[in-house]
């Protein structure tokens, strides 16, 4: 049986928020777990993230959120769907209140990681979702 392809994930900020610590930490956590990370950094519009997802042929997209501007996430999900990439799971992490978490999930976000989520929970969450998607 062919070796399973390594999981590849985008880690990105979205919009104008400049806080990168969370994204940097998660990128390291994923790399330590053997996941390939495409780190986009700051000033990524939803369009730019989708472009990168296409170019890099990723398995998942992780967005670090500090602001309450969730409309950008909605835009990202809509763009992915438009491009026929609606099956690529989108994960969010950051300072996101509880009621927003449910709203984001309703809009199609795969999972939301709260501040101080453990490395294990993040890796497990992403890997199991990606493997589930691949199995489909």
């Amino acid at each position, binding site marked *: 049986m062919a070796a399973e392809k390594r999981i590849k994930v985008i880690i990105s900020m979205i919009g104008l928020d400049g806080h990168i610590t969370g994204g*940097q*930490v998660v990128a*390291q956590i994923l790399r330590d777990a053997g996941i390939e990370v495409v780190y986009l950094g700051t000033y990524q519009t939803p369009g730019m993230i989708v472009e990168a997802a296409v170019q890099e042929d990723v398995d998942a997209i992780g967005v670090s959120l500090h*602001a*309450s*501007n969730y409309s950008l996430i909605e835009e990202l999900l809509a763009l992915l769907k438009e491009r026929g990439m609606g099956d690529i799971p989108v994960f969010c992490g950051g300072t996101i*209140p509880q009621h927003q978490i449910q709203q984001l999930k309703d809009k199609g976000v795969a999972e939301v990681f709260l*501040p101080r989520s453990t490395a294990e929970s993040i890796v497990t969450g992403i890997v199991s979702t990606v493997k589930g998607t691949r199995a489909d």
Partner: protein
Amino acid sequence: MKAAYTPDDVANLDYGKDLGDPGSYPYTRGYYPDGYHSRMWTQRMTSGLVSSRETNKALHQYREMGQRGGLCVICDRPSAMLIDSDHPVGRKEAGVLGWPGSSLLEFEELMDKIPMTGQSLTLLGSSAGSAIRLACVVVLAEKRGVDLQKVHGSVMEYPYANFFGQDDNQPFDFNMKLFLDATEYAIRHKIHMRAGILSQHFQESGGNNVQALAVEMAMLKQICSLLVNERGLDFDDVAPLPYELVSVGTRFFEEIAKIRALRRMWAKLAKETFGAKKEKSCHLLIAVHTSGRTMTYQQPLNNIVRTTIQSLAGVMAGCSALDNACLDNAYAEPSPLAARMSLNTQHIIADESGVADVADPLGGSYYVESLTNKLEEDAYEIWNHIEDMGGMNAALEKGFIQDMLREEILKRQREVETGERVIVGVNKLVIPQEEDFAIPIQEVTTGDSEGVARQMEAWKKTRNLALIEDKLNQLYSDCRKGDRYNLMPSIIEAVRAYATVGEIAGVVRLARGYSYDPFNMIACPFTIQV
């Protein structure tokens, strides 16, 4: 660290040389012989949300909640990055994380029925915007017939925040140029507005206390050197410019020691390195912001306790101003409840605890003096290393500061994961989310941002466009006169004519060979004679 400290631990302490009385060199014990009896610390909340009108309302509200001594407003991301609220990218986040301060009009609305004197005015934003924010203060004072010499506070900010989570998508040389022009102008015209040279961003990104001290001193030395050597200013005129905003965490005594060490280190830098001739030059204005990073998502009511410990540390260390983070920091911008709680924390400390009755109450403690010495010693080690590299700018070019910060961030993450670093409610005594207390959340919807954007679009058309074009051409022409030509006079003219941050910054960018728009989406709407 020992379990107990004794006189032996401070045997070598020389009171006159190492401590001094409060109000005496090297100011370890503070700048005022009478401590807070001379001047109470400014008790304030950082504000800035949705629109200028809403922020103005919040300022009035905070005043009712007992904010006293000064106000503090933080710019939203678009205006901090010098793009307008109606910019294609800016319009999605106008008023989201701060005040949409992209023009003089916005500043006028912000300051509606708020006096420019009698309290400190602090506007937090990014570096290049320093020049425009300063221009707004100058123009508004003029319009209101206020004596500019009586206005005080801080609207300028250092150019290093870009490396510490406050990136503004502008080139470093652009930031440095506008920052130095603004600060030089303020100093030469004796405008009592300060420039924030903050260790807060570095520390909130994950740096530890020792590193924060070293980085702060390196930044202060670099900026002061540039103003003295490149701009030809006298150090004693430069010394009143900087103010520091210290992030205060929960390790109570360490935070107090950090601030005491900072005072001593600045005093020595001023006197021994820069040859200060005035005693006032050995003072550093130190404001405290309690650590937002320590505010947990889980069990947010615990954050009230953390803020209290942190605020108490700031007061006992002798800060000049205190704005605390709020219990809902991990969720959203402060709700009125959270803001009131933070201000009340300060009031209770001020009015009920008695700690403000005595200057430097922990002075002489075997532990606190040992800790102050140790932090200073360890900080010098890192700071000397930075200076050996050529100073702050050089250390950043080499990536030393960034690497140091990154390592510390990852180290801390591991400590929390393993439980070595305990955070109650997060990795100890965790409760299910359903059992947690539901706090009110301050929301900002996209509709608000779009509203601000549309308002700006409409307003822009009503301005005297010919006048603005004229002023922007003057600015462009001044930019082409070389780096030593101070742009403040032409920026003030442009601001007075109601040119916006995007327009002013855009023209300066063009003159420096950059695109008008850092996002390359819009062109300059005025005709600039090249």
